[in-house]
């Protein structure tokens, strides 16, 4: 592990500076547009109570009202400060954390500016809890997808079929949830179909050494068209198989009463808790167990791993199938948060999950942080319209993808993929 970590920690100065400049641009933009753009008398309010005050409502917290310009000014200065610090000190570690922090602060300044009163917005407050709950659905799906990517790519197989596994999981999940009314079965079905797709990918990639990216892309195309075929052939004549229902929230007693954190983390569906467990289990398994050592060895140097007696192909099969199963559950989770299966409704979330994994440097913890940022920006692009931001909804919708491009362009190459990632392995 130490070898891998030390090489990954070698960061090129130029890249760090590029990231620092990106952070600085965000900071200056916030300063000029958001801070100076708010009238000095305007104020913005933060609400902390969830919209849906059911029996498990958290303890009440009052409204926080801030002067919009002052708050944005402080936050923008913090962002610029972080950028300068990164540029000057070029820290070997924690650059990504700083970048993530700046990204979140940027979204916060944007929200404060959007909710300023007096201002054009009919909504004069930001409900932080509702915002986090709303984005947690997207984030959850992205975490499932990026964990799937981590599992596959740490063992050296590029899983670009995450999108296809989402689609398959959502389809089977909706069918099982509608017939059994039990999301446990739906999750198992999703895991099975996702694992099966993973097996197909592994079969072509490992046995026949086909190009993994091409097989993945073709699988996504196939699953996409197969699902819309089945949607017309099965779900349209038999709508009882796609009644769709939302996974119920399971509030954890006491913990769910904590303001903000409670409703976001402890009053969620079972899928969310499963995701939390998976993050821990995969982090532990990959970095603290013998199995994880094998996986990472296979992903870095399969030939060396084979000489010490590790069955490279077997390890890869296991990981790709497990990864597929995780993404399949992610598809069920997406369906369970949307209510019903519709063709093409994952709209590229699988690819964003892939980018989140790269952003997170092939580590579960990093992938989670990236998923949170991407989830927030995806969700915000849909909600900002209610603040009547003077930008078209469709321009806002570009942002998650543009951020992903910027991140990949700024970071990849600096961050190092597992050495044998995507490389076919032939035993001789």
């Amino acid at each position, binding site marked *: 592990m130490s070898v891998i970590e030390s090489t990954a920690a070698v960061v090129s100065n130029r890249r760090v500076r590029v990231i620092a400049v990106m952070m600085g641009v965000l900071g200056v933009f916030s300063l000029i547009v958001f801070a100076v753009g708010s009238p000095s008398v305007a104020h913005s309010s933060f609400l902390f109570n969830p919209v849906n005050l059911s029996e498990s409502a958290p303890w009440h917290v009052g409204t926080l009202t801030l002067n919009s310009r002052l708050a944005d000014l402080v936050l923008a200065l913090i962002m610029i400060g972080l950028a300068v610090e990164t540029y000057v000190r070029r820290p070997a570690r924690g650059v990504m954390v700083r970048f993530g922090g700046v990204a979140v602060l940027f979204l916060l300044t944007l929200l404060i500016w959007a909710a300023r009163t007096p201002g054009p917005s009919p909504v004069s407050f930001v409900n932080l809890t509702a915002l986090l709950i709303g984005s947690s659905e997207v984030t959850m799906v992205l975490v499932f997808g990026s964990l799937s990517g981590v599992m596959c790519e740490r063992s050296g197989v590029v899983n670009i079929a995450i999108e296809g596994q989402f689609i398959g999981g959502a389809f089977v999940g909706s069918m099982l949830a509608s017939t059994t009314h039990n999301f446990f079965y739906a999750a198992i079905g999703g895991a099975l179909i996702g694992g099966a797709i993973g097996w197909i990918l592994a079969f072509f990639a490992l046995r026949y050494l086909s190009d993994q990216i091409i097989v993945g892309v073709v699988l996504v195309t196939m699953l*996409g068209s197969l699902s819309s075929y089945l949607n017309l052939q099965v779900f349209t004549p038999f709508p009882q198989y796609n009644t769709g229902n939302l996974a119920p929230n399971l509030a954890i007693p006491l913990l769910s009463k904590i303001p903000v954190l409670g409703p976001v983390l402890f009053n969620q569906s079972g899928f969310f808790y499963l995701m939390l467990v998976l993050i821990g289990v995969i982090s532990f398994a990959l970095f603290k167990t013998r199995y994880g050592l094998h996986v990472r060895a296979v992903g870095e140097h399969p030939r060396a791993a084979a000489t010490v007696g590790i069955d490279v192909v077997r390890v890869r099969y296991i990981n790709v199938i497990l990864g597929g199963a995780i993404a399949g559950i992610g598809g069920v989770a997406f369906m369970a948060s949307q209510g019903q299966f519709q063709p093409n409704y994952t709209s590229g979330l699988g690819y964003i999950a892939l980018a989140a994994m*790269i952003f997170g440097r092939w580590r579960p913890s990093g992938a989670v942080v990236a998923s949170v940022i991407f989830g927030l920006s995806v969700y915000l692009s849909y909600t900002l319209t209610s603040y009547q931001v003077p930008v078209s909804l*469709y321009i806002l919708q570009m942002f998650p*993808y543009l951020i992903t*491009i910027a991140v990949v362009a700024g970071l990849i*190459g600096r961050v190092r993929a597992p050495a044998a990632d*995507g490389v076919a392995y032939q035993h001789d």
Partner: protein
Amino acid sequence: MSEVATEPAPSAPSSAASAARRRWRLNSRSPIMITFYALLLGLVVGALVIITTTPAVLDAWRGIFHSGGGIFHALKVTWDNVGAAYRAMFNGSVVNPVSLWHSVTTGQNWEATLTPLSETLTYATPLIITSLGVGIAFQTGLFNIGANGQAVLGGVAGAMFGSMVHMPMFFHLPLTLLCGFAGGAIAGLVPGVLKAYTGAHEVIVTIMFNYVIYAFLLFSVLSTPFQLPGQQNDISRTIDPSAQLHPLFGVASGLRVNYGVVVAALVVAFAWWFLERSSMGFDFRVTGANPAAAKASGINAKAVIILVFVISGGLSGLAGIVQAASTTHYIDGGFLIGSAGIGFTAITVALLGRNKPGGIVWASLLFAALGVGGRAMQGATGIPLDLASVIQSAIVLFVATPVLVKEIFRLKSAPVAKLELATKGWGA
């Protein structure tokens, strides 16, 4: 065969003649036969999908156990259903034998007889152009998965020029096509530059760019200058008649096949010359085959990457405007979008055609026939047209895995022509 085809022909006439013979000998080691077998397997996969999802067929098989229906009855029902689907596909995309016989004997109704072929050609025209773009990128070792977005942007740019600028046809049509090319080229330039200068993996960047462009498409057709005046829906202005690609046999013929065919033929000729005869094309192929050797021989890798993406994106954009200028004459919010978008079909076409201009033409005609036939099949039998896309992906999966095809058909252990392309892992 591929080696023979790509390398400059030796000057000795005898060896050239034998090479030509080798090329056309259809034995089991010929890639043409592998493609044929893959096609067969793809149709088998499609048949399996029909069998497992059509209620009538399933009932017949269930009848063996319940109501004592014979196994032959079940087989007959299966044969009838699958046969009807594939017959409708053939009749709808190539020619309907009954209609042909009627036309030949009576000399009437040629329009109805020729419509299927005309539709297939109409559908194939933009597909050929896009696929050549994707194929050129593949030959350089780059995976342009953003062809769909580039085609959309090309369509938008071309349609803007074609609908909002007015001039005589002699200038208008070429300039409109050029605008389409430019739109696609810009969409290709960004991933190319990012790949060349930051190392951002083109697969991620082009996928993300697809979604950025889809959002831009909706923005453009819903915004004032481009939206059809007096409309609230997502529909653009109509392209001027002077910028349209008119039907080859006149509007009165009822056949939609149009002058886009001429554009496609010119592009095929250009692509052949470019890849096989021009020195820049040679640089491209060397870079794809062996980047290290290319660098050692002084080829500027960065320039090659950027140029490839400009050309590849430009061709996709040209396909987009050809599509818009020849069929609908306007653009709406769903232009080329969906899992079966032209850019994704083009990836599979390029793979099937082994990235050679000639192969791509045949593969485009085949896939266009499948697509058009799928529509006819949906009309005749009610089986959703997405089946065609499933068959297409299955074919490509088999083409990408010649060893599997060989094993299934128990072909002699001849050396198998591997698909000569390999995408590179994230780190590369």
